[in-house]
């Protein structure tokens, strides 16, 4: 039911409260999502390693493999844990500033793959890593100031 412009504003329409986070809370949120990317990368490496030699199992076989292969089990548990961290990070951070930081996962996976799987490093990979890190830094700096369109 809407009786006028007062109740049609974004907040009452979407029934969740937007609270202003303190700078310390915002920093903590960035730190948490940084942890999310590290945990996620570890999970991916474990899952990739654990899935080697499984072939293309059916859905049920995949479920059983996750429960019985230690590397897969730990990998997926870490993945679930990273989601919990993400939710806590989102609590006090801007979604638009927090979520794209997850791209750092690609950086860690590339580095971990070089270390554990012997993948060759090359100039393109290093350039890509540099650009992603620069992009994440720009995102962090850009949150909360210098709005493109003032509302």
């Amino acid at each position, binding site marked *: 039911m809407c009786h006028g412009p007062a109740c049609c504003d974004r907040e009452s329409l979407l029934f969740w409260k937007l609270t202003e986070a303190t700078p310390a809370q915002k920093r903590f949120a960035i730190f948490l999502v940084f942890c999310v990317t590290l945990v996620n990368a570890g999970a991916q490496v474990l899952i990739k390693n654990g899935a080697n030699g499984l072939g293309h199992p059916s859905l049920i076989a995949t479920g059983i493999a996750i429960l019985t292969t230690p590397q897969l089990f730990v990998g997926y548990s870490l993945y679930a844990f990273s989601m919990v961290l993400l939710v806590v990070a989102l609590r006090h951070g801007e979604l638009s500033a927090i*979520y*794209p930081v997850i791209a750092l996962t690609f950086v860690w996976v590339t580095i971990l793959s070089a270390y554990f799987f012997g993948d060759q490093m090359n100039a393109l990979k290093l350039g890509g890593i540099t650009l992603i890190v620069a992009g994440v830094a720009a995102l962090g700096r*850009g949150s909360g100031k210098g709005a493109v369109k003032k509302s």
Partner: protein
Amino acid sequence: MTPVSSMLYVFVAGFIGSFGAAFLKAASSRLRLNMIALLGNGHLIAGIVMYGLSSVFFVRGMAQGELSVLYPMVALGYMWTILWSRIFFGEPLTWGKMGGLVLIFAGLAMLGLGRSA
């Protein structure tokens, strides 16, 4: 050549994932460490399901095709997320965010090129 199906999988993964992230954000403001409250938090359930579903699509998409094409498509998911943040949560769209997104897009493309080389 990268199959269109792989591109579609990655595209859908990013799209669903962006909604998952928005639901998780909505859920995070009403978090209480209580099993009943957690299970009754519809946003949380929706967020977890969509986030998990997006990773299934993502893995399917990444199974075949060139990473130099598929990696930057992941950044499309971030683009949607920034859009939903603006629409649903009123977060400001800043030059830093747009510049960051462009850098991440270029970085993922380069990393993908390096990995397929």
